[in-house]
């Protein structure tokens, strides 16, 4: 029992009635009017202090466990406290958990990124394996250009007069129709054969303007045969015309008729040659343009 000077019990336990001062006696008399009552109460309090208290009870530990469990359960239920308080608790805890989660996630992501960089360091930092670096290096560019240039068609400049040729390979394309010319001419610097560039450009066909007499014969002569044969001179044309004449039944023609035919054929051949030269000049221009483009 703990009392202080403001408590009457303090004087009951510490002082006899006769030992009280005037002030203290005045204070005690507010609650205890007589000395006999003072002494009786004093005796009781002293007995209570002297006699040891009965053994106090100790709570069962199971009660504590059950209460703590109930507290944990009630914290997440609606019925615990006010809803506002419950919300505050959960929000605060959630915020803390989120912060912690973001923190650890960022650390994990950083570690994964560093591992990835470390594993792929060759591809990122070594120029040999760096595709981007390869493209930027001029050395590779030059090589590539060489490759491209090696795959390009060489353009032959043909001087029809001197028949000089700069020979390069050509690709062969098919003749599509009468308006397109695409042939492959093998390289032959000695022959008079003409190398033609294969292009998709349209050329005017070399057509002959036969006379009426040998219209049929000339019609049977394809451009291909003419060009494949290369350039023609008059004797060759005539010989060829004779062959055609025989086949077509013109062998019995008179000399006059033959002469006119020869003239016509020679005119046609010259026309063809002229046309060819004209077309070659045109080709030359186209070839120059093509080469320039490349």
């Amino acid at each position: 029992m703990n009392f202080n000077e403001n408590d009457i019990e303090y004087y009951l336990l510490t002082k006899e009635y006769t030992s009280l001062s005037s002030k203290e006696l005045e204070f005690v008399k507010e609650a205890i009017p007589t000395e006999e009552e003072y002494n009786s109460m004093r005796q009781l309090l002293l007995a209570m202090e002297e006699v040891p208290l009965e053994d106090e009870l100790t709570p069962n530990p199971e009660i504590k466990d059950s209460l703590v469990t109930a507290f944990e359960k009630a914290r997440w239920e609606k019925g615990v406290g006010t809803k506002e308080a419950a919300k505050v608790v959960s929000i605060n805890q959630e915020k803390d958990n989120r912060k912690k989660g973001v923190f650890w996630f960022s650390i994990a992501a950083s570690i994964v990124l560093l591992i990835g960089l470390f594993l792929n360091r060759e591809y990122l930092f070594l120029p040999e394996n760096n595709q981007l670096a390869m493209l930027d290096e001029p050395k590779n560019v030059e090589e590539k250009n060489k490759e491209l240039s090696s795959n390009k068609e060489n353009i032959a400049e043909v001087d029809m007069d001197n028949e000089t040729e700069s020979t390069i390979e050509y690709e062969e394309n098919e003749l599509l129709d009468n308006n397109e010319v695409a042939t492959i001419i093998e390289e032959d610097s000695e022959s008079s054969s003409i190398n033609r560039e294969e292009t998709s450009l349209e050329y005017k066909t070399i057509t002959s303007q036969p006379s009426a007499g040998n219209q049929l014969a000339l019609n049977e002569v394809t451009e291909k045969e003419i060009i494949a044969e290369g350039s023609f001179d008059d004797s060759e044309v005539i010989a060829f015309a004779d062959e055609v004449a025989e086949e077509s039944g013109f062998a019995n023609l008179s000399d006059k008729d033959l002469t006119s035919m020869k003239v016509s054929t020679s005119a046609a051949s010259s026309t063809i040659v002229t046309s060819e030269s004209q077309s070659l000049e045109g080709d030359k221009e186209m070839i120059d343009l093509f080469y320039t483009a490349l």
Partner: protein
Amino acid sequence: MKLNKQAYTTYTDEQLMDEVVKGNSRAFTELYDRYSKPMLNYFYRMLWQDKLKAEDFMQELFTKIIQKPHLFNSKLKFKTWIFSIANNMCKNEYRKQEVRKGSNNDLHENIIGEDASDAVKKVDQSLFNKRLKEELNLLSESHKQVFILRFKQGLSLKEIADVLDVSEGTVKSRVFYTLKKLSANLKEFNPIAISVALILGIF
């Protein structure tokens, strides 16, 4: 864990209760450790020294704190608040016992009667405690509460006034009325007289 536990031991009862309202289980555990034993013994003394009933009441008391922590009045001390809850629980139990008094009303009285007839024959400290309990049970509820709160639980007059929701003067008068009545009924247990008798070899 140890640091947290030490931190909560330095908290006041009111700070712990604030944490309990926020859902802090450790604060609740600390409060329970502080008040479980005093409240158990309070119920034991108030409810006719029935240990099982005292444990039930103590558990029910803390369950109420778990369920409605927001009802804590921050203007009052926690000690006053928890004793006021316990006091109300005892009042309700007394009302129930008054209803049952017709059938079992002789139980406590018989015990008291038998003990009172044999009390003067033996000088025994344990008997004194027993007699004291019996005398307390004979008192009215309000006087009994005041006596236990004052001399067993150590509450001040102001705290008792807050618990019982009465004035300090009322508490003061009840305290000394109880002391007066008990001292008159337990006069044979005058310690001074007993000491003298032992010295003289009377007993």
